[in-house]
């Protein structure tokens, strides 16, 4: 009888043990992934945080005050970053939409070559492209201004926008457009009422990547902006070279917060699209 009951209970005990081990592993994983982020909160509110103290003894808002101070460059950098990200997102989606449709819906001669061309910026490092463009952009007056920087941002952005949206077009049935047209809808109305709602999830994900890639871009902005276009990553990079950890941390939080907020808003469109997630590779 005892032998029987132990043979019944032993597996549930080891299963429970396995479940606890699994939970511990998950908690450890999340802890390891979040500690670098937590370190920013510690630093951002610290003042005179001397060595062995694990928590800052003196909490302070100094770093935050210097961010909003009148001589702070943060507002200008935030504005530039926002203009760039919005401009790059809108133009990349508009530029990429027709190509995504062609690649998603049709097969044609040379399609693989076109796909290879469009995806190649994901492999070739951005500095090679930016250095080559730099000299010509100086001649064309595109160096050191936001238009030139935005144009260069398109290079790493386009592959992900086209990749994401052509994936949506691959599951799209263009016959509905024909039906709308035969019922008397014009081309604009057809796009707005038929095509757009069908591809909307793809546009959201493509925009998310375009925004994030542009928002986080440092080296392309630095090389083409020539010190004239101050964006958040440029400002943060130069602040990080100094020794004011509290200011660096506070600035990092200001820089990251919009991205995390936008990611939360768009998360439901992301799930399951394994090919689309590739956009994070450029950040």
């Amino acid at each position, binding site marked *: 009888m005892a032998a029987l009951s132990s043979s019944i209970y032993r597996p549930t005990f080891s299963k429970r043990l396995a*479940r606890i081990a*699994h*939970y511990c592993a*998950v908690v450890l*994983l*999340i802890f390891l*992934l*979040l500690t*670098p*982020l937590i*370190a*920013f909160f510690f630093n951002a509110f610290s003042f005179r945080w001397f*060595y*062995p103290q694990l928590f800052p003894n003196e909490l302070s808002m100094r770093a935050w005050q210097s961010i909003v101070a009148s001589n702070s460059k943060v507002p200008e950098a935030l504005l530039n970053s926002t203009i760039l990200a919005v401009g790059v997102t809108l133009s990349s989606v508009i*530029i990429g939409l*027709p*190509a995504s449709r*062609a*690649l998603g819906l049709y097969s044609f001669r040379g399609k693989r070559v*076109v796909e290879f*061309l*469009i995806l*190649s*910026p994901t*492999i*070739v*490092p951005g*500095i*090679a*492209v*930016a250095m*080559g*463009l730099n000299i*010509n952009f100086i001649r064309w007056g595109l160096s050191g201004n936001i238009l030139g920087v935005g*144009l260069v941002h*398109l*290079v790493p952005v386009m592959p992900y926008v*086209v990749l994401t949206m052509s994936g949506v077009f691959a599951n799209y049935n263009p016959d509905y457009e024909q039906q709308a047209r035969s019922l008397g809808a014009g081309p604009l109305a057809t796009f707005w009422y038929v095509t757009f709602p069908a591809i909307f999830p793809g546009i959201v994900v493509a925009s998310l990547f375009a925004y*994030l890639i542009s928002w*986080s871009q*440092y*080296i392309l902005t630095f*090389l083409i902006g020539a010190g004239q276009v101050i964006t958040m*990553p440029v400002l943060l*990079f130069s602040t*990080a070279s100094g020794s004011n950890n509290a200011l660096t941390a506070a600035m*990092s939080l200001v*820089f990251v917060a919009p991205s*995390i907020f936008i*990611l939360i808003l768009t*998360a439901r469109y992301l799930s*399951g*699209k*394994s090919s689309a*997630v*590739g956009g*994070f*590779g*450029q*950040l």
Partner: protein
Amino acid sequence: MRSFWDRWHIPIMLTPTLAVIIFLFIGGLGYGTLVSLGWQPLIGRTEISLDAYTNIMFSDQYSSVFWQGLLLTIWVSFASTFLAAVFALATALLLRRTFIGKRFATFLYQLNLPVPHVVAAIGILFLFSQSGLISRTGAQIGIFGGPSDFPIVVRDRFGIGIILSFVWKEVPFVGVIVLAVLQSLGADYEDLARSLGANRWQRFRYVILPLVMPGLLSGSILVFAFTFGSYEVPAILGVRFPRTLTVTAVRFFRDPDLNSRTEGMAISIIISIIVFFLVLGYMWLSRRAIRKD
């Protein structure tokens, strides 16, 4: 007779995107190649030569900067990619199981995806510098007497800090790709293998691994190419010698002497060529490995 639109709609639709790629990407790369060959008409240099390349690779002044830098770059990107892929697979398997709080754990897992590399590098600095959080924790427990007892793992010769930063950033990135593949598979294949008597290791090796391999490989190719050409992380977490090739290239390019742009450009063309061939070789090898399975 087909209408104009019927004949030409595909090229017309492709034109805007291809224009961006050809003018900005191919154009930039092509002009950069010319510059690296010494062609700088703006400062009166129009003859083509390989001087910059030989200067960088073989001159007494720069050869050790180049070769040591190349070694560091290869080491950092291979180590980061390998570790990121292994941990991504392990953590994706961890998060695939059903458990209470799975949705929340998966959300937290993805939280660092939108964190830019500049910020990731700073975070690693806050944690792993000699007076960082980990050193402080050790001092509280009594392992370390002071900051100098903590091993130098950021701004170190071997790029440990750079690797840590890349791994932290890329584990969730590759992991999310693997997790998406795993979730689309469901449990059917594994149940079938189990009913045929496969043990836990066999189910992993012969069922799960071959199925997630394509996703794992394409994710790690992106990671490898990115880490090889990345600038901000090695610039923040690196040392003066050796520097990664990208950091050296940017230094040359930013030099007030316009002639050293040629060297900077040559290094970044060399980086591009190396990445291109390594990725090509990697894809070829992995295709062959998958076919063998």
